[in-house]
C-alpha cells in the first residue's frame, strides 16, 4: 500500500535518509522509531511528497494523509475551518463525519485552534488528516509534548479507527513503548539507515533495542492488545 525502496533524501550536503526500504500493507499499523536526528521526519516528508528524494522509489496505493510533527494547525482559524481545509482536494468538506469518530471535537468546533490545549490540537490535527478520507495515515510524533493520559486517549482513537475502518497507520515515534504497544510491526531508523525491523514483540525482545529505546531491564509490554506477532524475524544487521 505504501512502500519506499532504496530511498535517499539529501538536505543540502547532508544525507538525511540513506537507502531506506520499508512498506506498510493495507490495514496494517507500522511504527518507525529512532532517536532525534535519525531522519524520521525527513523520511516521512518524502513519503508525503513534501521533500523530493535524491534517488529511490516511493509507491502509494490509495489516499494518504499526514499529521506533521508539532501539529501545525491553522491557529488563526476555527477548529471547523481547520477540519474542512483538510478536505482541500476532496468533495466532502463537512466535518460532521469527523465528529462521529472523534466526538471530542464537536464541542470545540467554533474555538480558534490557537486557544486549544496540546492534546486537543493533536486531536484536531488527526481529524484534519482524516478529512481527506485516507486509507493510510502517517502520524509524526503523536506523543510530543503531551501528558501520558492524553497520548493514551489519542492512541485508543487511532486503534479504534484501525479496527473499525481498516485505516493503515505509519506511526513515527520517539516513544518506542507507545509505538510497540500500538503497532504490530516496526522499523528502527538511526542516522538515516533502517538498523532493525520486525514485529514489535520481536523488537521488544531484542537486547539492543531494549537497551537503546526501552531502557536497560525493560520488560516486553504486557498491555499489548493489538494484532499478533508477524512472522518476520527481527534483525539488526544494518540493512533494510
Amino acid at each position, binding site marked *: 500500500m505504501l512502500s519506499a525502496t532504496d530511498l535517499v533524501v539529501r538536505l543540502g550536503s547532508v544525507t538525511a535518509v540513506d537507502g531506506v526500504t520499508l512498506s506498510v500493507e493495507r490495514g496494517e499499523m507500522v511504527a518507525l522509531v529512532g532517536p532525534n536526528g535519525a531522519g524520521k521526519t525527513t523520511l516521512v516528508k518524502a513519503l*508525503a511528497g*513534501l521533500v523530493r528524494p535524491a534517488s529511490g522509489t516511493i509507491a502509494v496505493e490509495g489516499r494518504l494523509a499526514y499529521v506533521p510533527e508539532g501539529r501545525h494547525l491553522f491557529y488563526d482559524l476555527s477548529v471547523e475551518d481547520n477540519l474542512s481545509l483538510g478536505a482541500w482536494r476532496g468533495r466532502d*468538506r463537512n466535518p460532521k463525519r469527523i465528529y462521529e469518530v472523534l466526538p471530542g471535537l464537536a464541542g470545540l468546533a467554533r474555538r480558534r485552534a490557537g486557544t486549544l490545549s496540546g492534546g486537543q490540537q493533536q486531536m484536531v490535527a488527526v481529524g484534519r488528516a482524516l478529512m481527506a478520507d485516507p486509507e493510510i495515515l502517517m502520524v509524526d510524533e503523536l506523543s510530543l509534548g503531551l501528558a501520558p493520559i492524553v497520548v493514551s486517549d489519542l492512541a485508543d482513537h487511532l486503534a479504534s479507527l484501525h479496527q473499525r475502518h481498516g485505516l493503515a497507520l505509519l506511526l513515527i515515534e520517539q516513544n518506542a513503548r507507545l509505538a510497540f504497544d500500538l503497532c504490530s510491526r516496526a522499523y528502527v531508523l538511526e542516522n538515516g539507515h533502517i538498523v532493525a525491523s520486525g514485529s514489535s514483540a520481536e523488537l521488544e525482545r531484542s537486547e539492543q533495542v531494549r537497551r537503546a529505546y526501552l531502557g536497560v531491564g525493560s520488560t516486553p509490554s504486557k498491555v499489548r492488545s493489538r494484532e499478533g506477532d508477524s512472522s518476520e524475524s527481527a534483525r539488526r544487521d544494518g540493512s533494510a
Partner: protein
Amino acid sequence: MSALVEYLISGVAIGCGFALVGSGFVAIFRVTEVINFAQGTFAVVAGFVAYSGLTSAGAPQGVAEALGVLAAGALGLAFGGAAIGRKHTSPLASLVITLGLAVTAYAGEIAIWGDQPISFSGLQGDFVLAGAHLLRQYLLVIGVALLVLLGLGVFFTRTYLGKGMTACASNRFAAEVVGISVRRMGLLSFALGGLLGGFAGVLLIPIQPLSFNSDIDLAISGFAAAIFGGLRSFEMALVGGLVLGVAESLVGGYVQASYETVVALGGMLLLMLWQARRRVELA
C-alpha cells in the same frame, strides 16, 4: 468650521484610497511574505486604462473603470508570476523583482499614455455638509472603498478559497500538508492585490490626477497604511489609511500642501512608535 469639514471628508476619501492600496500590500504579504513595491503601479495602470476606455474607446464610465480594475488584476497576476513564479525565490528577491517591475512599467506607461498627469471627471456635482461644499466623488470613493473592504472580509472569512488563502498566511507548511498549493495562492493574492490597487486608481484619479510616477506616492502611503496593522490586518490598514489621509488633508489645508506627505508620514511614524512601545509594555 466648513473648511475643517471639507478637509476631513476629503481626507477620509483619500485615506480610503490609501487603505485600498494598503490592503493590496496586506493581501500579498499575508500569503507570500513579499512586500510588493509595484502596488502603486496597479493603481496608476488602472487609472490610465480607464482613461483610455473613456476617451479612446468611448466606453461608459462604469465599464471603463471596471476594465481598469480588471487590467490591474491581470497585471497583478503577471507581476506575481515574475516575482514568485519560480520555486524557492526568497521574499527579499521577490521584493527586488517587484521594485524592478514597477520601474520597468514606467517605459510602457510613458510610451502609451505619455508623461503628463492624466485625470477624468468622476461623479459630477457636489453636496453641502455643515456649510462645506464637497464633491460627490468623495462619497463614491468612501462608499466603494468600504464595500470593497467589506467584500474582502467576507471573502477571507466566509469562502473556502479565502480560508485557503488565510491558511497559507497562518501556516504555509500546514497548507502544503493538506494539499493547498501555496504558490497558486500566492499568485491569486497578487491578482487580488492588483484588483485592490486598481480600485484605488480608478476612484482617486478624478480627485488626484495620476502620472506615470504617481505610483511612488501611492505605494508609500499605502505601505504606511498597511504597516499600521503589521502588514497582516485589513482592518488596521483601513484605520492607517484614514489616519494618513486625514492628516495629509489637514496639513495641506492648514499648513502648506508641500508639507502634507512629510508631516503625515512623520505623524504616522510617531503613532507606530507609540504602538510598538505599548505592545512591548503589554507583553
